[in-house]
């Protein structure tokens, strides 16, 4: 569907408006679907962020049930999927049947909008629309929409970034074993796998992880990896050496 000038005007004006309204990321996605991009009969929206460990978690969504989100959850940058292709190749649209998303109605399209920040793609917005977006015929408009959406999103979600994390005055001091565990967490190992790899008890790994979390002032594995990476505690050769040992 090619937009008329009045429709283009409406989409951008509503995007301007939403961009300056204080609301959560989830509410923004909802407003984006029903308001700014309502002309495409937008059914749902999902936003994925790229973490420093290259995992791609679902940050927020609008209009989908939990089961319908499943196909795109828990992705990794190294995988090949429509979402990771958006991170690598930018703006694209797929017919529902080509999207690998069984829950989407046949007559719909899935549009993938890259969210840039400082010329890097830090997130991807996925929207499901009932009207053909015809991206190739109106690429400039969609590129501008993607940038406007990106501007609104990065003000509501801070990707992992040295500028968004204030390093503590004193760097946490970890033992060699704790650093080894941290490195194995970063490559995606479970506590059981780490215990086996390092010849430690399962509960020992859990205890050491608590020490690591406390030292990094975090509460999840993803946060720990992100923060450790920003502090320069993760060296690329580390996990490989341990894995090869």
């Amino acid at each position: 569907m090619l937009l008329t000038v009045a429709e283009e005007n409406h989409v951008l004006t509503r995007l301007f408006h939403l961009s300056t309204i204080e609301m959560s990321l989830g509410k923004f996605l909802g407003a984006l679907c029903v308001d700014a991009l309502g002309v495409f009969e937008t059914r749902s929206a999902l936003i994925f962020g790229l973490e420093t460990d290259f995992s791609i978690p679902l940050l927020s969504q609008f209009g989908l049930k939990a089961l319908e989100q499943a196909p795109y959850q828990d992705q990794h940058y190294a995988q090949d999927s429509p979402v990771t292709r958006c991170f690598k190749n930018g703006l694209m649209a797929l017919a529902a049947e080509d999207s690998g998303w069984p829950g989407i109605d046949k007559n719909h399209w899935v549009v993938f909008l890259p969210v840039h920040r400082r010329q890097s793609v830090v997130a991807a917005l996925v929207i499901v629309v009932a009207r053909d977006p015809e991206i190739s015929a109106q690429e400039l408009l969609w590129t501008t929409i993607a940038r406007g959406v990106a501007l609104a999103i990065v003000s509501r979600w801070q990707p992992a970034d040295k500028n968004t994390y204030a390093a503590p005055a004193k760097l946490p001091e970890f033992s060699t074993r704790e650093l080894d565990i941290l490195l194995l967490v970063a490559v995606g190992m479970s506590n059981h796998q780490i215990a086996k790899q390092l010849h430690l008890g399962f509960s020992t790994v859990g205890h050491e992880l608590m020490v690591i979390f406390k030292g990094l002032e975090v509460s999840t594995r993803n946060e720990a990896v992100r923060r450790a990476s920003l502090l320069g505690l993760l060296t690329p050769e580390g996990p490989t050496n341990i894995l090869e040992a």
Partner: protein
Amino acid sequence: MSVKIGGFIPNSVGVIGEIFAASLDHLGTSDTVRALSHVLSEHYGTSSLLLYGLKNDTSLQLVESFGFSESVQNQFRSVSLFDKLPVSDSIREGKIARFSAEGLLERYPTLSDLRLPHASFYVAPCTSSGSPIGGFIVGFFDSKDDENLPLMVLQSLQVAAFHVLTRQPGYLEVF
């Protein structure tokens, strides 16, 4: 082509995209304002900009400027929201205004001493959730109208200015 105020010129979509990109690619206030001025200058001729943040609901503080002389910056570094000045009026009225050089001096005769070299000015408020947080004035060295500088571009500048202001350190405490 004739375009009424509030109108839309298709190729302004690209300029709006560039304004968004400038805000995304730069994070520092000075860098972002410089990049925005560059986009404006490239498409609409050399421009100057004064960006203000609203402090304590009554005072306007100059946050960043580009292209205006040092004396203009010093004279208007801090002004009241209730002063009879273009940015103050625009913020209070919540409207974008366009002035020719003559029109500006007619409405604000006290500015005649500045001997500004610009031929046209746009003044716009910035809001967050509908509440004023600041505003800006852009000057151009040639005359402008809605045809050669669409309102949509000014509106996208308002969005960019909103992001500059809200990225200020201590924004919630200060502005």
